[in-house]
């Protein structure tokens, strides 16, 4: 089991293409870490640097405390599962699984045992004599996973391994991967652009953007306390509604003006906003924090809106509403909700749950709910990550 630490790691391609920009990250022993971000954010490059497939331009990469920047990939004792499976095309499943072990001079009986155990676990023990071209995508995926598992490495590096599978298979594999991780307790670094995967699988999520780490933390923590509007807009489906607004009213913090409507800021929430009094801000409202009937508890503001669309998903219904000035918000509703496009209905926005972000940088000013103001030690929070960061 491995503890993987990145210290100021930077990757520059060619002369000046900065792929990964001075990142610090610790992946703890046995942890399931998800690197999440849109394509081109540097997450795959980060994973490939850990694997040794890309050289580290500057900074240190440590595995179990040792700097491994110049260690051959084969000697890092890590296994990679690739997006396109990357099976050896002319070898049978059995030989694919045995290849790495044979190169490591593993005794044949050990190889046989491991292959038997692994293939039984993955349910591919009936495929040993097949070639990759004779397997379905899902089967190839399992073989690719099996090839990593038989090696019994220090850590697993998964590079978007589920993205080529259909939705149903992907869900099944998610569960399976979690199960395997729990069983083996090995360190896993999983790269994905799918926030559902990240939320469901990761013990911690590391969100990246443009070569930098934006935020690291357990899924729910990141979800509740997005470090900036990018993270807020990236997680969950539909994601947080982000609306342009301006702090206004008495002292410049008593209300936030969203052009068509204006929302009061509850008195106890105003303090963190004072520094931004009268400024442009980005207002974040989660779809589940808007209701069509006034809840019994809490502080809500009624706004009358026009229904733009109603998306019936089954277990829930997404209502897309026009606040009046062209600003639209998505609202999550129960399965029984009904409305017709063009109808005017009232909405109740939970004023306690509104998030505030700086207009330019997008950095969080105030999170919704009980969490209150964003900690001033935001910088160290980002680096350290985790719930045990100072409160």
């Amino acid at each position, binding site marked *: 089991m491995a503890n993987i630490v990145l210290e100021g790691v930077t990757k520059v391609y060619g002369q000046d293409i900065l792929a990964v920009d001075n990142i610090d990250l610790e992946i703890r022993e046995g942890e399931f870490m998800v690197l999440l971000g849109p394509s081109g954010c540097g997450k795959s490059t980060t994973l490939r640097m850990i694997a*040794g*497939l890309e050289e580290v331009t500057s900074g240190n990469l440590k595995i179990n405390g040792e700097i491994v920047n110049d260690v051959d990939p*084969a000697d890092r004792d*890590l296994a990679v599962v*690739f997006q*396109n499976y*990357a099976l050896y095309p002319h070898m049978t499943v059995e030989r694919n699984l045995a*290849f790495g072990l044979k190169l490591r001079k593993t005794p044949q009986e050990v190889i046989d045992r491991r292959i038997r155990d692994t293939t039984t676990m993955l349910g591919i023990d009936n495929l040993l004599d097949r070639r990759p071209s004779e397997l379905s995508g899902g089967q190839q995926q399992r073989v690719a996973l099996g090839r990593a598992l038989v090696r019994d490495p220090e850590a697993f590096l998964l590079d978007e391994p589920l993205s080529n599978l259909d939705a149903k298979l992907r869900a099944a594999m998610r569960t399976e991967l979690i199960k395997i991780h729990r069983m083996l307790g090995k360190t896993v670094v999983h790269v994905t652009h799918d926030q559902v995967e990240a939320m469901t699988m990761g013990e911690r999520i590391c969100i990246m953007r443009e070569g930098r780490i934006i935020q690291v933390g357990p899924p729910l923590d990141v979800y509740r306390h997005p470090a900036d509007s990018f993270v807020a807009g990236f997680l969950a489906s539909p994601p947080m509604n982000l609306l342009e607004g301006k702090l206004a009213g008495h002292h410049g913090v008593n209300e936030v003006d969203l052009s068509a409507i204006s929302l009061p800021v509850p008195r106890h929430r105003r303090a963190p906003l004072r520094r931004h009094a009268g400024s442009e801000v980005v207002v974040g409202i989660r779809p589940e924090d808007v209701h069509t009937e006034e809840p019994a508890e809490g502080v809500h503001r009624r706004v009358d809106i026009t229904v733009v669309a109603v998306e019936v998903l089954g277990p829930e219904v997404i209502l897309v509403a026009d606040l009046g000035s062209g600003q639209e918000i998505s609202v999550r509703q129960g399965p029984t909700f009904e409305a017709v496009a063009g109808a005017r209905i009232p909405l109740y926005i939970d004023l306690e749950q509104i998030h505030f972000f700086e207009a330019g940088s997008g950095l969080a000013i105030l999170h919704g709910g009980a969490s209150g103001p964003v900690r001033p030690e935001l910088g160290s929070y980002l680096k350290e990550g985790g719930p045990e960061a100072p409160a």
Partner: protein
Amino acid sequence: MSVATADGLTLAGRDRRFGLLLTAPGLLSLLIVITFPLFFTLYTSVHDYTLLTPNYDTFVGTENYQEALDEEYLPGSLWVTTKFVLASIVIEFIIGFAVALSLHATRRFGSIYYLILLAPLLINPVVVGLLWRMLLHSELGIVNYTIGLVGISPVSWLGDADVAFWTVVLTDIWHQVSFMAILLVAGLAALPREPYEAARMDGASTIRCFIHITLPLMRPVIAVAILLRLIFAIKTFDIIFIMTKGGPGTATDLISYYIYRAAFFGLDVGRASAMAAGLLVIILALTAYLYRYMNSLK
């Protein structure tokens, strides 16, 4: 559900008919262009058609084929052709692959290398033959002069039967090897990167990567490259015609030049057609075999 239309055809059927209508002229002309010379050759091969009596008045059945088979030097020519084809393809494949691998790994000046590599291919084979005949002149050529500088005695490149065969093979390779290299480079460029990375993670050496990943993944491209070169090599004519006229003796008497002589020196187009038809059967058989092999890779 199929919807029947006024003319009793389903919509899909009408679509098919319309498609056929659109492609018919193309298919038809292709068919004519390909099959006409073919049948013309076969038809000629069973007639006593000579340049002196260019008509189909005398049907001779398999006589032309019999005559061709009885010819003293035909087996030798076939054997020389076989050796030539095998030697040039094997060597071209090895050199071509080596060049392709190094070109593939080259990051800088790639286009310059391509240009240099392609240059021989762009030269007319007649010019290639004349050029090398001049360079390889046993007494005055620059090649013998150069090797003389390092103390190697002059080589009779085209005068010695054994050497001349290899001279012709190497000239052909010089001319054609880039064709193989370029096809293989294209194949290499299309290979996925990930299996190599998987192999790196597994700790496989470069040679193992080549054997276990590159070769198997390249097999369809290799098959196509070899098939094309095979067909071209069997048809090799110009460099023989220019450089050796099939000599010394029969050392470089390739079948295409042999057939050419039957037609234009022997004036016997019927017999030449019979030999051409035989050659076609051989090429078709080889092509069919390689084609099936290629399909089996899918």
